[in-house]
């Protein structure tokens, strides 16, 4: 359930320029506004895009979060692959249904 708030944060960052500015200045301050598990907080802070993907964050939202850190597209795709290798299959959300999720 709580990956919901991870996605809510990303959604808000896309829509609210003031929040985005605050996030750029003090990431921890903005993250403290959301109900997050320790693992989520760590993944968002690093950021560990691969782990966020494995947790079940929708790519259409995750991609924008990666873009905040100026992550090039090729790297975005690579770190998702690495996330799967390191943390195992996607745990929740749409991509649990992917054929590749079982390997």
């Amino acid at each position, binding site marked *: 359930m709580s990956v919901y708030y991870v996605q809510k944060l990303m959604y808000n960052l896309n829509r609210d320029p003031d929040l985005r500015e605050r996030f750029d200045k003090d990431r921890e301050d903005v993250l403290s506004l959301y109900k997050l598990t320790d693992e989520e907080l760590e993944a968002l802070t690093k950021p560990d895009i691969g782990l966020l993907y494995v947790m079940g964050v929708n790519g259409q939202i995750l991609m924008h979060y990666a873009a905040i850190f100026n992550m090039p597209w090729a790297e975005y795709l690579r770190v998702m692959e690495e996330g799967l290798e390191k943390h195992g299959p996607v745990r929740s959300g749409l*991509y649990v249904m992917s054929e590749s999720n079982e390997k």
Partner: protein
Amino acid sequence: MSLVYAGMCCHAPGITVRPEQADPELLAGLHAAFDQQRQAIEDAGAEVLVMVSSEHFANFFMDNMPTFSMGIADEYESPIENPDWLKVPKVTIPGSPDLSQRIIGQLLETVDISWAQEWKFDHGLAVPLNFLTPEYKMPIIPVNINCQAPPLTPLHRAWALGKALRQAIDAVPEKVALISTGGTSHWPCTPESGKINLEWDKVLVDQLIHKRKDELLDYKFQQTFIDGGAGAGEMRTSICVAAACEETVGEVLFFEPIPVFATTCVIATFFQG
């Protein structure tokens, strides 16, 4: 009869973000087809363009996800993405609030559609509008169908929205064009991004053009996800517009897989008044 044109087009962000990486011949063909559609909309005398799209968590979120929504605003900001990244201009696009009111009022008789005064267009609208209304003077009414966050809008409900839209549009004096944006296979923003299921796309577009209702409404959620990726859920937008003009056979203006855009790009006419 106030529906004057209906059709479908594609909205992959790559079309504006990285056109230089596409095969120049394919790109020229896609641009020509967009232009043909733009011309057809203008020649039909359309005064308003209703765009049925699937936005990507730009305005609607899991805190209160509408099955259907329609814009009712005076104007809309576009794009919500960084315009330097999407490479489309940052613009304010006119709406048509009075017409929105009347259409929504009619739709609500049979469809539970939400409506929104605030709506920032994402690439799902900003990319096609860059080609279809390059001057950004044509009033736009956005429509959204939940194609992203399960439980998704059932396909037969998207069909029913199309039927209701047609009835509502035909009841107003304005000349209205109706365009859907999307539905072909793609695996956006995932490790499988770039995959294209061309055979599956061919079948889908053929069904849409011929408005084969039974086949269109028979797609199953999980199998569609496996065959067409998460992006294929956007077929709801085109099923809706196909339903709005079920009586006519459409025409494909462009159908080519463009790998660097990560999908099969399609431009098609569904109805010409």
